[in-house]
């Protein structure tokens, strides 16, 4: 008999995630933690169109003026507002030979948070990388209206690799280094301020049978926030490797995970836990210091995992992929908190962690009405529960909550 999960899931905490799919739709999934509701699709931006297929996405997650960068299949890069989905700027990266063709599509995109080249709220910097290895730093000026956008941008382009194709591109937390790797390309680290190669990996030695596995990196991530020297890479030959720039050019730790290629790697803030997703939908967490499996995430996930993200504050990760589900997992218990069906193959997911504080800044009048409505609803619920169930403690708790909310509302009224 298959094992069925019996552990009661604690419900999804309040969060907001944005998913990007192959039809170019951006779907916003929100969960309200207090009401123990399942997460729902709140908003949907864009029209279904295959040429607008999202290849990479990056979010600048901050309280004031967050930005969302989206790279489309057509070679366009859009900078959106993750609050309401308005397009702030749209540019197309000029590649030397054939822009936006299938064999030179964008594989990586990073939107810079920090101040660089005098960026302000009206402008931003972004790094893109195409599969042929053309890295591109672009300075984009944003404007309120769509018409005159895209004209003012400065670009610096350089080549990351001579041959092969780039499959992964990541920028470290300080945003001064970037790593590139792919099929036939060993992992390179580049200093972004000088656009110069700092370090490159060396392929591991032949195995005991004298067989050399060709280089094929499929995913990579920097291990911790304050250190750009350690990073983890996943290969097509289902191997996960830890590299340390300061130590050696060959991997420090490497281990195998299942039988299908590693498709997504994400790091935890603690600096040693990593999450690995592979081509047949297995998701597991590893302790990278020892290379030991901490545990697998079981949850009927049947399709390849394309993207994993860790929530910056909550102990929660989200995964998505070809089975078109967005799944939210608890990190500690490794239980599936919820799964949202989003209809298309998903390419990536990001967490918008600051949305709750932003919501709090909404003009108080609107909120007042909302809250009063909510309290009324809750009152009804409590009455019903009292009648139905014997659990007085639960209803009491609710009652106190209701009171507190009401008092808050009153204070707001006075204010």
């Amino acid at each position, binding site marked *: 008999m*298959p*094992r069925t999960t019996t552990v009661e899931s604690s419900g999804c905490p309040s969060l907001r995630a944005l998913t990007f799919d*192959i*039809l170019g739709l951006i779907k916003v999934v929100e969960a309200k933690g207090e009401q123990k509701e399942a997460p729902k699709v709140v908003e949907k931006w864009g029209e*279904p169109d*295959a040429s607008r297929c999202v290849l990479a996405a990056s979010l600048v997650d901050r309280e004031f003026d967050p930005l969302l960068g989206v790279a489309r299949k057509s070679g366009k890069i859009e900078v959106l507002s993750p609050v309401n989905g308005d397009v702030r700027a749209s540019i197309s990266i000029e590649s030397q030979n054939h822009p936006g063709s299938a064999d030179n599509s964008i594989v990586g995109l990073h939107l810079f948070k920090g101040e660089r080249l005098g960026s302000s709220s009206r402008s931003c910097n972004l790094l893109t990388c195409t599969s042929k290895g053309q890295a591109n730093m672009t300075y984009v000026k944003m404007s309120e209206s769509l018409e005159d956008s895209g004209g003012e941008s400065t670009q610096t382009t350089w080549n990351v690799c001579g041959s092969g194709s780039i499959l992964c591109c990541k920028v470290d937390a300080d945003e001064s280094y970037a790593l590139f790797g792919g099929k036939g390309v060993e992992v390179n680290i580049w200093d972004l301020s000088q656009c110069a190669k700092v370090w490159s990996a060396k392929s591991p030695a032949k195995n005991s049978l004298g067989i050399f596995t060709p280089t094929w990196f499929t995913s990579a991530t920097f291990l911790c926030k304050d250190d750009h020297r350690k990073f983890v890479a996943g290969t*097509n030959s289902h191997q996960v490797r830890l590299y340390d720039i300061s130590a050696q050019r060959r991997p420090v730790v490497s281990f195998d995970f299942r039988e299908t290629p590693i498709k997504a790697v994400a790091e935890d803030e603690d600096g040693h836990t990593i999450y690995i997703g592979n081509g047949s939908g297995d998701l597991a967490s590893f302790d990278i210091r020892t290379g030991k499996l901490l545990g697998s995430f079981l949850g*009927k996930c049947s399709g390849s995992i394309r993207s994993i993200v860790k929530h910056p504050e909550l102990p929660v990760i989200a995964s998505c992929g070809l089975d078109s589900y967005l799944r939210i997992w608890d990190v500690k218990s490794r239980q599936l908190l919820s799964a949202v069906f989003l*209809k*298309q193959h998903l390419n990536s997911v990001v967490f918008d962690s600051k949305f709750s504080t932003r919501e709090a800044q909404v003009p108080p009048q609107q909120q007042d009405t909302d809250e009063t409505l909510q309290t009324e609803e809750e009152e009804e619920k409590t009455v019903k529960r009292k009648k139905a169930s014997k659990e007085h403690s639960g209803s009491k708790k609710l009652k106190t909550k209701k009171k507190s909310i009401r008092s808050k509302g009153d204070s707001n009224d006075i204010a």
Partner: protein
Amino acid sequence: MGRKRNLSEDGGGEDEEERPMKERRVKEKQEVRESMRPSMIKNKEKRAAVHAKLKQQKKVEKRKKVKAREAAEKKALELGEEPPPKMVPRTIENTRESDETVCLPDDEELFAGNDVDEFSAVLKNERSPKILITTSRYNSTRGPAFISDLISVIPNAHYYKRGTYDLKKIVQYANEKEFTSVIVVHTNRREPDALLVIGLPDGPTAHFKLSKLMLRKDIKNHGKPTSHKPELVLTNFTTRLGHRVGRMIQSLFPQDPEFRGRRVVTFHNQRDFIFFRHHRYIFETKESKQKESKGKKSKDEKNPQERTIARLQECGPRFTLKLISLQHGTFDTKGGEYEWVHKPEMDTSRRRFFL
């Protein structure tokens, strides 16, 4: 067990009067006997007798119920009222676990996705399907026979010897020759046991388990199919995954059936098993040999002497498919990404289906 309980109850009720006590005891005994199961009796002969009696009782009750229902229906018909609603048996299919991935007819995203998926070129008639059929490395007896049957079913299908080529090389070759799909018949112990359907140029790869294969020559009274383009019937492909598999199967056949051929190919999905059947149908006008009483009734509507009936003749082969995995991109077992793989942890219920 039952007796013991009786005894204890006797002990409890001693204080009360004698007469009503006796009556009550008798009643209680009857109740106990009814609630007692025959399996509780230890004596075999007695147990068998009680069981037989019970069974007979149940049978009689059931017959009564059916008769009452029929009578009610008849009465309602005579009075010209609505007949009582017919009971629908509960089956595993109609008590299926609700699935959010079931395709809805008003889903815009689904249609937008359909327009751009790998099969749309074939299904929109921009490309005509051209199928390459090959086998696993070793192939004998039932394998070639099955392939010759398949070739007669699928128009524009070509058999190529496998030789010692890698499947990836074959896919590459087929791509260059502008085939739209590759079908690989895998045989094990001289019996075809798996079917691999690869969409080209970048379509998905479906791996099916093949079972219950019956070749044309083994089917009694089988017909010989003509070379007309067949009609295709796909039933019960409800979920997103099922829809995709259905479209994949659809892309193997030409999209302009020749109805003159009266040839129909059916892929019927039931509980995740896809049943393949191949028939020829005919409409015949037949003189009815109905009884007069029935004929009178239908006289008002139409002439009872001429009725058209459809007759089916099976052409074969006959087999059952079960999806094992659906892989994104062409065949690549090592580096492939799966869209769907069956995992044991997904079997949480008998009433959960994926297609």
